[in-house]
């Protein structure tokens, strides 16, 4: 089985499992008393946000190693991870304001976490535009690697922004030094959702990597 087919079927499995997460979150996970059913947006928003950040970290790590080894597989992986990270960032920036409208009373606030996440989304877009704008493959990979490393440097700032600034955005309740502040039933739903987003990330990256490789082989031919 080719990498593209493996990625395709991994994605299909991920989407089916996401349906299972929807059922568990909506039907079998308790409603939070203060926020109501809209709190369940958390089970999609946060896993997507974690993978938005992790995808950029992986772009940065692949970019650093690429600059030393010049292995085109690393550049191809960085490109694939950046595109998938953009998709997850779009989910974060769609679900977040929907939750904000009902819980905060506003779609958007220019606080540090929201603004830096929007900046990361624009950085992803810029990374993909840069790759499309540079014709020479060697220069494209080098320029993209530098931008990918800058993106990776932004991730710790985004994660810590809720501690560094006074923000409207809630502080982490799972990814923090102390134990998660969630009842077990909610934590299990979140962990299942995170596992499904991981499967989706892997499936999407496998497909996008295979697509990039096919394009390069087409250009060579």
């Amino acid at each position: 089985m080719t990498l593209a087919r493996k990625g395709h079927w991994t994605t299909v499995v991920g989407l089916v499992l996401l349906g299972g997460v929807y059922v568990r979150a909506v039907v079998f996970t308790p409603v939070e008393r203060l926020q109501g059913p809209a709190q369940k947006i958390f089970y999609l928003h946060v896993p997507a946000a974690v993978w938005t950040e992790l995808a950029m970290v992986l772009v940065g790590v692949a970019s650093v190693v690429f600059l030393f080894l010049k292995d085109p597989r690393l550049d191809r992986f960085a490109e694939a991870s950046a595109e998938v990270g953009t998709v997850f960032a779009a989910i974060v920036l769609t679900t977040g304001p929907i939750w904000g409208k009902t819980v905060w009373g506003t779609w958007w606030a220019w606080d540090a976490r929201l603004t830096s996440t929007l900046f990361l989304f624009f950085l992803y877009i810029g990374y993909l535009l840069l790759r499309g704008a540079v014709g020479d493959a060697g220069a494209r990979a080098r320029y993209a690697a530098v931008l990918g490393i800058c993106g990776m440097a932004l991730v710790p700032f985004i994660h810590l922004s809720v501690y560094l600034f006074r923000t409207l955005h809630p502080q982490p309740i799972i990814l923090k030094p102390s134990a998660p502040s969630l009842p077990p039933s909610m934590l299990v739903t979140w962990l299942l959702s995170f596992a499904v987003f991981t499967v989706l990330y892997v499936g999407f990256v496998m497909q996008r990597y295979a697509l990039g490789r096919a394009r390069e082989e087409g250009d060579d031919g």
Partner: protein
Amino acid sequence: MADAPHNAGYMAAAYVATALILLAYAVSLYRRAARR
């Protein structure tokens, strides 16, 4: 929960939007691969 806010519509909107974004990207990858 009688005293919880009635905002299930917002939850539904977020869940539908997430599914649409993921499905759209999955279809986009499939179509781009099929053109090769």
